[in-house]
């Protein structure tokens, strides 16, 4: 943000964009993030001085912007990023949250984690190398996690003489590959993260490119339709019963809207009971609101006294989610201990938690070739596959492609309490 032109009211009206960056060790991902932070003037003087010192100690000629995103000591020692780190910057238009994830094969788990909350993915391609296996992997994960927007940055254009033909060859190759994936909105930008071309400021070296710079795209891309505003879903987190005389009979259902738009007076149905009622009020600390939509946190009160508790879901009568105990899903395995065939796990879905048994592993996906292997059913760390589970309680779900909140689950190992898998319901 240009500090001189800081505008308070502008700040209060900003939107939030969450994006993830996928890239391999050498394709300049850290440099790109450092460049975005530096050129958008999000770096403080003491931070800059720290990396200036560190760059000098390492005998580097320029200040290494990549050092800005270096995290824990283990990484500093090994020179690699080992986990998801979150970064923040803002411009007068938007606030950005970056989920910075490493790209090498053993860290599929981290990419999936970063991708799960992202509106947009930046996929970096080294202009000298073109589309490589890792590009396929990153794109597949972006499509599996249904990140609404993808920006392919063809980086290191300075090392290919800013050549338009190279850029177009890579773009066409990517488009051909992406046609096999379920991705909707793909953009291409030729950049040099090191020199800053087309990151924040427009490149003078590539007059043949007439699209937006990366930052301009991040600031303006339409994210208003990224949430589901059609299917009304309200997973109940808890029941609010104040022990106060002034709210003696108050019974509110607290939760965060997972889809659709709820309005006062709407006829609604509670699941699993199936009882119907009408929304009496949608309450917040700041007073009643007329309507609530994702991702608002509100408290709903109903006209009738019906039994609702944590893990239940309030929906519209004429638009109910799927309900059942036999569920098919794609999973990404996140633990060193492999999936146990017929193993029992805790499954967490919205605010509901129960147990499940893995009935079947249908196939494992080779994430580089997208080949489905029905012979090899061993699912270990960083593997992606399709499984069927049976749950002890019915879940109220939508397919993940329809709703990323009501379509997602995690599996937890009962023995270690560790989160072992991320699941996307089919």
């Amino acid at each position: 943000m240009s500090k001189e032109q800081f505008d308070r009211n502008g700040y209060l009206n900003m939107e939030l964009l969450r994006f993830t960056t996928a890239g391999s060790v050498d394709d300049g991902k850290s440099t790109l993030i450092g460049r975005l932070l530096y050129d958008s003037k999000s770096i403080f003087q003491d931070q800059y001085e720290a990396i200036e010192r560190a760059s000098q100690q390492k005998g580097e000629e320029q200040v290494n912007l990549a050092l800005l995103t270096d995290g824990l000591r283990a990484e500093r020692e090994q020179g690699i990023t080992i986990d998801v780190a979150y970064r923040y910057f803002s411009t007068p238009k938007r606030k950005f949250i970056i989920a910075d994830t490493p790209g090498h094969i053993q860290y599929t788990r981290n990419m999936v984690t970063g991708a799960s909350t992202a509106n947009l993915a930046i996929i970096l391609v080294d202009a000298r190398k073109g589309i490589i296996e890792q590009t396929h992997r990153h794109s597949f994960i972006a499509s599996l996690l249904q990140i609404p927007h993808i920006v392919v940055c063809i980086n290191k254009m300075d090392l290919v003489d800013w050549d338009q033909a190279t850029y177009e060859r890579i773009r066409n190759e990517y488009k051909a590959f992406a046609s096999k994936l379920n991705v909707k909105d793909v953009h291409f930008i030729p950049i040099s993260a090191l020199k800053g071309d087309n990151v924040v400021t427009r490149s003078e070296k590539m007059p043949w490119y007439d699209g937006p710079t990366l930052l301009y795209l991040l600031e303006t891309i339409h994210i208003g339709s990224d949430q589901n505003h059609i299917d009304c879903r309200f997973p109940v987190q808890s029941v609010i019963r104040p022990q106060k005389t002034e709210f003696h009979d108050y019974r509110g259902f607290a939760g965060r809207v997972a889809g659709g738009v709820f309005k006062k007076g709407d006829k609604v149905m509670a699941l699993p009971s199936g009882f119907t009622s009408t929304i009496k009020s949608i309450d917040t600390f700041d007073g009643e609101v007329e309507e609530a939509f994702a991702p608002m946190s509100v408290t709903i009160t109903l006209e009738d006294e019906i039994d609702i508790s944590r893990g239940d879901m309030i929906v519209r009568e004429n638009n109910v989610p799927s309900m059942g105990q036999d569920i098919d899903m794609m999973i990404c395995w996140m633990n060193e201990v492999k999936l146990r065939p017929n193993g029992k796990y805790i499954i967490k879905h919205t605010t509901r938690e129960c147990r499940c048994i893995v009935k079947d592993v249908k196939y494992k996906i080779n994430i580089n070739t997208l080949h489905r292997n029905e012979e090899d059913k061993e699912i270990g760390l960083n593997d992606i596959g399709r499984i069927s589970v049976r749950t002890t309680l019915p879940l109220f779900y939508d397919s993940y492609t329809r709703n990323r909140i009501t379509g997602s689950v995690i599996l937890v190992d009962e023995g270690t309490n560790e989160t072992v898998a991320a699941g996307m319901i089919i």
Partner: protein
Amino acid sequence: MDYNLTHLKELEAESIFLLREVAAQFENPVLLFSGGKDSIVCLHLARKAFYPANVPFPLLHVDTGHNFPEAIEYRDDLVKKYNLRLVVASVQEAIDQGLVKEEKGYNASRNALQTVPLLEAIEKNKFDAAIGGARRDEEKARAKERFFSHRDEFGQWDPKNQRPELWNLFNGRKNIGEHFRVFPISNWTEMDVWQYIYQEGIELPSLYFSHKRNVFKRDGQWLAECDYIPRKPNEAVEERIVRFRTVGDMTCTGAVESEASTLEEIIQEVASSRTTERGTRADDKRSEAAMEDRKKQGYF
């Protein structure tokens, strides 16, 4: 029709969701309250999350004994006003009991000593989730912190063994004796916090606003004159117009020269300031990995 929230509303909704998850998933949560603006915002969010019911957990203040009197006064007013329960963990008591040893020398601080009484209080009161106001933008080691951060039975944090966090599914399962630290404002920046305080009209301790104070300079940093910090012979006390960007232990919280006496002026100052707020914290400057080391042992 477009349904969009402003970024502050979206952050607020996320934090409220998290606070409600804490109340639902844990038996005995506690809110770590320092009197600093981040914990004040957390408390405000908790009041919103459970309204019209009261905040369903107590506050825990780790008292170094070296507090700014203004911060303690503010804390006590707040507890009374919102009918809260306050638990105090005392560093002085831990020293008296021989659990920790007071640091010596000019830069002696009780800041690092807070870990032991904090963990003692968590153990003694059987708190299973301690909610804190840490933000990921504050410091490198915090950039990777989870919302639900698992601590082993010794209260330790293992950066290499963190549970993955996906979507809005938070795994608070643990064994007996273990606990969680929960950070509902992880995704907020310093500017977000100030803007939110302004938008919501949240009252703050007077320390945050510019005032006259006797201070002295050490290593380029203004420190408040007080009985807890021995001065070197060349450290002369001067009266300056200052304010504090963070409120912690008196011995390690630096003042900045500032005329900003209203929230609007502070926001302007934060927007144009050129050092991070932790740049005024001596405890982080001890080594490059100072925060990471303290966190592993169970610091906030």
